[in-house]
C-alpha cells in the first residue's frame, strides 16, 4: 500500500535526469494535445468577441483589439438562448430523471425481488445492448408518430428512459449492498418500497450520480433524436436550433452562442471529475 504513489516510473527515477527528460517529453506532448482539445472552446470564445468583418478576415488572430462583449448579450437575445437553455434543460433533465427512475426500479426488482424469468430478462437486456440503436431508429420514429408524440417532450424522453446499460450497471451495484441491512429492515416491518427508498437508493447514491451526470452530458448534446422529434422551433434544444440556424447569423454572433451552449456540460464534467468512479462502471 505504501508503494501506491508511483506510475510506471518510481518517484526516484522520475527525479533522475533521465526521468526528467522523459517527463519533459510527456509534458510537451500532453501540452500540445491539451491545446488541441481546448481549441474549439477558445476559438468560439474569441471569435464571439470580434466584429462581423474581423472574424472572417484571413489570418491567425488570437485576441481582438476591441473585444465586443455585447456580442454575447446580442447572441443571447437573437437566438432566444434563454428559451433554448430551458428547452435543453427540460429535455436532458427529464431524460436523466426518467432513465434513473425506470432503471433503478427495474434493477431493484432484478437484484432483490427474484421475479420469474429473471435471467431471461437479463439476457434480453444484454442482447438489446448489443443491437445498435440506429438499426431500429425508423420504426421507433413511426411508433412516436402514431402515438402523436412528435413535438412533445414525452416522445423525446421515452427512448431516453430505456437504457439496458444503466439497468445492468445498477443491478450489479445493488447486488453489492449487504443483505443484513435488508434483513434488519424486514424485521422492523419495512415494505419493499421503503427499503428501495431508504436503503438501496441512498447506498447507491454515488453510482446514481455518476450515471446521471454521464446521461445528462449525453442528452444535453444529443442531436439526431431531438432533431427528428422536435420540429417546432419553440421546443427545440440547443444543438438542434444552432444547427437549423447555422446560415442565418453572422459568424461572430453564432460563435458566441455556441460557446455559451458548451458551458453546462463542462460544469457537469467538473462534478463528474470529483465523483468519478475509481474503477469504471461494470455490469
Amino acid at each position, binding site marked *: 500500500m505504501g508503494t501506491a504513489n508511483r506510475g510506471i516510473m518510481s518517484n526516484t527515477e522520475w527525479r533522475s535526469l533521465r526521468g526528467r527528460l522523459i517527463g519533459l517529453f510527456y509534458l510537451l506532448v500532453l501540452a500540445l494535445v491539451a491545446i488541441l482539445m481546448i481549441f474549439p472552446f477558445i476559438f468560439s470564445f474569441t471569435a464571439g468577441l470580434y466584429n462581423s468583418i474581423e472574424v472572417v478576415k484571413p489570418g491567425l488572430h488570437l485576441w481582438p483589439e476591441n473585444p465586443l462583449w455585447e456580442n454575447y448579450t446580442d447572441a443571447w437575445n437573437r437566438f432566444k438562448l434563454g428559451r433554448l437553455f430551458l428547452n435543453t434543460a427540460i429535455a436532458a433533465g427529464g431524460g436523466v430523471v426518467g432513465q434513473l427512475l425506470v432503471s433503478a426500479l427495474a434493477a431493484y426488482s432484478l437484484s432483490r425481488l427474484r421475479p420469474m424469468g429473471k435471467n431471461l430478462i437479463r439476457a434480453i437486456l444484454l442482447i438489446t445492448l448489443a443491437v445498435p440503436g440506429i438499426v431500429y431508429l*425508423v*420504426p421507433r420514429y413511426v411508433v412516436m408518430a402514431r402515438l402523436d408524440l412528435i413535438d412533445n417532450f414525452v416522445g423525446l424522453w421515452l427512448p431516453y428512459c430505456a437504457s439496458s446499460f444503466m439497468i445492468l450497471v445498477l443491478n450489479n451495484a445493488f447486488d453489492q449492498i449487504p443483505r443484513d441491512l435488508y434483513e434488519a429492515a424486514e424485521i422492523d416491518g419495512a415494505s419493499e418500497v421503503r427499503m428501495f427508498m431508504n436503503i438501496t437508493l441512498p447506498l447507491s447514491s454515488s453510482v446514481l450520480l455518476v450515471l446521471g451526470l454521464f446521461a445528462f452530458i449525453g442528452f*444535453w448534446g444529443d*442531436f*439526431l433524436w431531438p432533431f427528428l422529434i422536435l420540429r417546432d422551433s419553440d421546443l427545440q434544444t440547443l444543438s438542434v436550433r444552432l444547427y437549423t440556424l447555422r446560415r442565418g447569423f453572422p459568424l461572430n454572433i453564432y460563435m458566441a452562442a455556441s460557446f455559451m451552449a458548451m458551458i453546462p456540460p463542462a460544469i457537469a464534467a467538473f462534478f463528474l*471529475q470529483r465523483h468519478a468512479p475509481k474503477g469504471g462502471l461494470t455490469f
Partner: protein
Amino acid sequence: MTSATTASTSLTTQAASRRTNYWRKQGLAYLFLLPALVIFTLVTWYPIVNTILFSFQKVNAGGFQGWVGLANYTRMFGNPVFYVAWKNTLMYVVLSLVMGAMVPIVLALMINEMRGLTTFFQIIVYLPTLIPIAVGLLVWRQIYAPEGGILNELLLRLDLPPQLWLQNADLAKPALIVIMTWVGAGGSTLLYLYALREIPTELFEAAELDGFSVLDRILYIALPLLRHRIEIMLVLQIIIVAQVFTEPFILTNGGPANSTTSPVLEIYNAAFTRTDFGLASAWGVSMLVTLSVFSVLYIVFTRRDLIQE
C-alpha cells in the same frame, strides 16, 4: 386424529398462504419492472421486430401499404450507393483504427505518469466529449474552411499549399476521422487510465529493480496487461465508427460524390427525405447483420473480463 387433521389443515393453509405470498411478491417484482418493460417494448423491442417486418413491406408516412417481398432488398442491392456507403464504412473503420486507436493508449500512459497534473489532463482530454457534437462540428467547419480557415492559414504560414479539406474526396474522410478521434479519444483515455491503475505497482517496481527500461516496462508489462481492455475498446470503436452519422451529415452531407456517405446517412435520407421506411429498414437490417458480429464479440469480451476478475 383430530390433532392430526388440524395439523394438516394448518399445513395446507400455511402452504396456501405461502403461495399467495409468493404471487404477491411476484406481482410486486413485476410492478417494479413494469415501467421498464412497457417502455422497452414501445421504443426498443417492438421497433426491432418492426425493422425486420418493414424491410419486407412498403411503408411510408401514411403507414403500411402492403407486402413487397424482397423488393426493398433488390432496390438496396441494386443501388451502387449501397456498395459505396459500405466501402466508406470500411475505410472509416480502418482509418480510425490506424489514426485513432493508439491515441488514447499513448495519452493514458503519459497522463498516468503526470503525478500532480493527472487530474488536470484527465479533465482536458475529456472536454471534447462534452461539447454538444452539433455545436463542436460547426466550430470544426471554421477550422477546415477553404478560405480564412485556421488550418489553411497555418499551412500558408508554413509555405504549404492550402487544401480543400472537406471538398476533396481524398481528404474528406481523414478530415472527419480527425474530428471523431478528437471527440472520442477522451472517454477511451479515461477507461485506459482506470485499467492502468489496476495494475499492481509491485510489478513495475520489480521490473525497475531488475533494470527494465521505461519502454520495456510499457511494452512487456503495461501493454500485455491492458490487452483485454484494448480488445474491448477496439471492438467498441468499430461498432461506433460504423454508425457514423452526425459528422458527414453536418459537414459534408455525404459528399463530395458520396465519398463520405455512410449507411446511417442513407437510412436517414431514405426515411426522412423520401419517407421510404421500407428501404430504410432494409438498410437497418444490413447494419444489424454486419454489426451483430462485433456486438457479440463485445459482449463476449466484457463478460470474459468480468468472469476473470
